[in-house]
């Protein structure tokens, strides 16, 4: 009994921090409709600044806290709101999600550049006398834990008063529902939104600083993993109730410690279950927790004020144009392949092949995000599932490699279909959260298991051998990848043109309207998600086969995030864009590593730090998604087509003017090209 209580007490401070993070997430979700995936990144910023000032420069606690939390937290929130989220208040949910994802990718890297790569050991807490122990009978807490609990209580009390009893709280709730109607009620929606962002970002900073001492060192990854616990707590509160959210965070912290105390630390159950707890809890909540069902965001009655989104470029293209771009694309690829076969050296040959494989993987994002309008954070995990499944099946059952890759893809597809279940009855955000939980669980819980990865060295995935063709030859393997890419591309095109694609188009437009004309949302959703996971799994198998093995560090969480921001930045609506993105994924860091700006400090020099700089570039690039959801490639294509069109029209006009001056075509049609479909 005493044991139980003392374990539980140890869980309270951790639970408090979970609760703080969760409340912060709920706050921005409630007030701006943004599920702030970058919340963990913001927590990391404040933790890093606190460490830098308090530990490295020995500032007094109050000053370091003032700068890192009280000043920096709200400041970041203000900037994010002013620069980004304010303009997205009436944008589709996916635009907001992608924007916060871009931040999640870019911010930690930017902090790392400033913070330096040298490890930051032994972070300090906010308690003035950290060694002091507070005792109640047989129970004890140290000063930092007590400080955490006190601060949390203070924050929760303040928030409750705000939302229950204050005018600002009421206005915040009104702005969440309809910024436009709030404005008609004389509320400055922008200002209210800003205050919400500042408050929530303050909580991010606060929880970052409170969490840091729980770890041996300050590093970004710890904060992402903790975010899952916070998201689980937020889900417990139905993404809206602050008291419930708080209770959820607390319960999770306590549960984790109690489990840790009771389960023998060397048992399989404990090693598997303990770290998996937050993920499992989140996933179960997404599946079964009634408050999450059907909340969605109440539709804004004034949504009709916004113009419809512009038509994707492909629909305003003339058919001649389409043919021309296709021919051009095929010619380019063919040119590259010929060059690769006959001219590239081994290094570039491998790189180019890898680019083709990433083209395959990125097509999975085209399917899910471009066509399905949903965001997955676990594409890297699916690729990993494909790769490890292939490896294990080949190793344990001696199956031939090539067919097994497709079997691996099937395994990934099944996992994907299971993950898609929460998204069936709930809106797209829950799918994203389920993939967040899965991706982190994959990395932290599943991959370390020997039946998945066979240990840190990973599992062999040999090159295929089909009849007389031995794909250990790099040129043969290149052709294989090309064929797979072509087949998958074709499959994606077929799906896009076929019934499922039409379904998805309808669903993207309006779920309600689509349902009323009998579009089966369940089937369309599961199909796309399983297809997408399967494609990623196939790509993962190919990738492993290229290097000969799949290792635990190949398919990490962060990589999956980077893939998504990369594809949405370049273009998620077309097969072509996915292939270009695959090439850029390898070429951009490669090119960056050749840009040697020796005058810059090492960490800012692209040549020394290509991966981080690429993350920042594409993370920030994803911020353009809201404005140009078709991606910059498609945007550029559209611009050039428009230019060619106007040029063509001008030419035609001049010609007809010389023929018959009185009867030229009228170019000034008010709702002409570029208008609504």
């Amino acid at each position: 009994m005493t044991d139980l209580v003392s374990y539980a007490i140890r869980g309270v401070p951790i639970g408090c921090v979970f609760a703080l993070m969760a409340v912060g997430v709920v706050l921005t979700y409630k007030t701006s409709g943004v599920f702030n995936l970058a919340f963990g990144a913001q927590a990391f910023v404040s933790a890093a600044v606190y460490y830098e000032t308090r530990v490295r420069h020995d500032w007094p606690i109050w000053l370091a806290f003032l700068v890192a939390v009280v000043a920096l937290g709200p400041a970041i929130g203000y900037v994010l709101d002013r620069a980004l989220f304010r303009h997205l208040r009436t944008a589709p949910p996916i635009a907001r999600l992608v924007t916060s994802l871009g931040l999640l990718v870019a911010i930690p890297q930017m902090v790392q550049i400033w913070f330096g790569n040298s490890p930051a050991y032994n972070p300090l807490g906010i308690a003035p006398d950290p060694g002091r122990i507070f005792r109640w009978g047989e129970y004890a807490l140290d000063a930092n834990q007590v400080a955490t609990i006190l601060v949390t209580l203070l924050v929760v009390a303040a928030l409750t008063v705000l939302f229950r009893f204050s005018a600002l709280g009421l206005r915040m709730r009104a702005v969440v529902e309809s910024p436009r109607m709030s404005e008609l009620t004389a509320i400055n929606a922008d200002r209210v939104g800003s205050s919400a962002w500042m408050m929530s970002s303050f909580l991010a900073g606060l929880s970052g600083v409170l969490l840091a001492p729980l770890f041996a060192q300050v590093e970004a990854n710890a904060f992402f993993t903790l975010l899952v616990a916070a998201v689980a707590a937020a889900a417990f509160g139905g993404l809206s109730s602050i008291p419930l959210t708080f209770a959820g965070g607390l319960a999770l912290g306590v549960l984790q410690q109690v489990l840790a105390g009771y389960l023998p630390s060397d048992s399989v159950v404990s090693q598997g279950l303990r770290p998996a707890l937050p993920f499992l809890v989140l996933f179960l909540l997404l599946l079964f927790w009634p408050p999450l069902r059907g909340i969605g965001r109440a539709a804004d009655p004034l949504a009709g004020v916004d113009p419809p989104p512009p038509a994707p470029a492909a629909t305003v293209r003339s058919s001649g144009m389409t043919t021309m771009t296709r021919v051009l694309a095929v010619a380019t690829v063919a040119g590259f392949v010929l060059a690769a076969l006959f001219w590239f050296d081994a290094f570039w040959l491998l790189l180019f092949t890898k680019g083709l494989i990433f083209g395959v993987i990125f097509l999975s994002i085209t399917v899910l995000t471009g066509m399905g309008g949903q965001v997955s954070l676990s594409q890297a995990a699916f690729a990993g599932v494909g790769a490890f499944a292939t490896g294990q099946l080949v190793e344990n059952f001696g199956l031939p490699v090539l067919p097994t890759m497709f079997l691996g893809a099937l395994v990934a597809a099944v996992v994907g279909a299971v993950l898609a279940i929460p998204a069936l009855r709930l809106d797209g955000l829950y799918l994203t959260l389920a993939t967040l939980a899965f991706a982190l669980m994959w990395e932290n819980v599943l991959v370390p298991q020997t039946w998945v990865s066979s240990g840190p060295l990973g599992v062999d995935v040999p090159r295929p051998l089909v009849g007389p063709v031995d794909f250990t030859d790099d040129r043969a393997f290149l052709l294989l990848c090309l064929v797979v890419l072509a087949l998958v591309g074709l499959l994606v095109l077929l799906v896009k043109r076929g019934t499922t694609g039409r379904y998805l188009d309808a669903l993207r437009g309006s779920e309600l309207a689509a349902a009323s004309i009998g579009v089966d949302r369940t089937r369309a959703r599961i199909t796309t998600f399983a297809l997408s996971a399967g494609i990623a799994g196939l790509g993962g198998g190919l990738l492993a086969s290229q290097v000969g093995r799949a290792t635990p560090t190949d398919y990490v969480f962060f990589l999956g995030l980077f893939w998504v921001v990369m594809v949405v930045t370049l273009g998620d609506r077309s097969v072509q864009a996915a292939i270009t993105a695959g090439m850029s994924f390898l070429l951009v860091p490669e090119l960056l590593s050749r840009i040697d700006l020796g005058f810059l400090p090492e960490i800012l020099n692209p040549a020394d730090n290509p991966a981080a700089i690429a993350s920042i570039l594409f993370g920030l690039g994803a911020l353009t998604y809201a404005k140009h959801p078709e991606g910059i490639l498609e945007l550029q294509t559209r611009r050039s087509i428009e230019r060619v069109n106007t040029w063509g029209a001008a030419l035609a006009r001049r010609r007809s003017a010389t023929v018959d001056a009185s009867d030229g075509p009228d170019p000034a049609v008010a709702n002409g090209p570029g208008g609504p479909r």
Partner: protein
Amino acid sequence: MTPPLLELDHVDAGYGPFRALFDVSFSVAEGRALALLGSNGAGKTTVARVASGLVAPTAGHVRLAGDDVTGVAAFRLARRGVAHAPEGRSVFATLTVEENLVLAFREGTKRGHPGVDASLASAYDLFPRLATRRGQVAGTLSGGEQRMLSLARVLVQPPRLLIVDELSLGLAPIIVSEVYATLGRIKAAGTTLLIVEQLVSHALGIADDVVLLTKGRTGYVGPADELGDLDAHFLG
């Protein structure tokens, strides 16, 4: 001569690339009521949105009591006394009835504040059904009750210019008559009205002036009693 309370001066407006209004000009003098009539899709709602600042004109000017307010944010116009009850279900569905009503008070949103109690009382007087449902979440009200609430919301603080869009839609005829009687009282108390309606008879009963809108362009602009046969305008 005092300038009109609301003036649209050669206004073009639209949504993205789509143009909904073409060169619309009219004005409403202080204390008068103007009915904006037209078929579906003529652009009436867009005119209302331009007048309350929800949609910014792409050309032309909007003036409020002589001041140029083109492109001014909607909440600033609201603070200057422009109230707009949008068409359709326009209540905060997640707030309670009473929260919907007190939202508009800038000085304080609590009962007990001077002014708040009295205004709430008069709103509930006007729509007794709302009084019995004051603690209920607005999204669970019936359609008619929601329309009442959206009207009550703009009336709790007597506006200087009241814009009502398709007020009668979804209300029982008897309530429509009541609401129009209320509008009449508000007008008598000095509020200027811009009424967007399909139910022409009610609107014409209260309007001093009429603007006819067809495909985003103004047709007849003038006093209500010189309008003559409406059908002739629409057909011709």
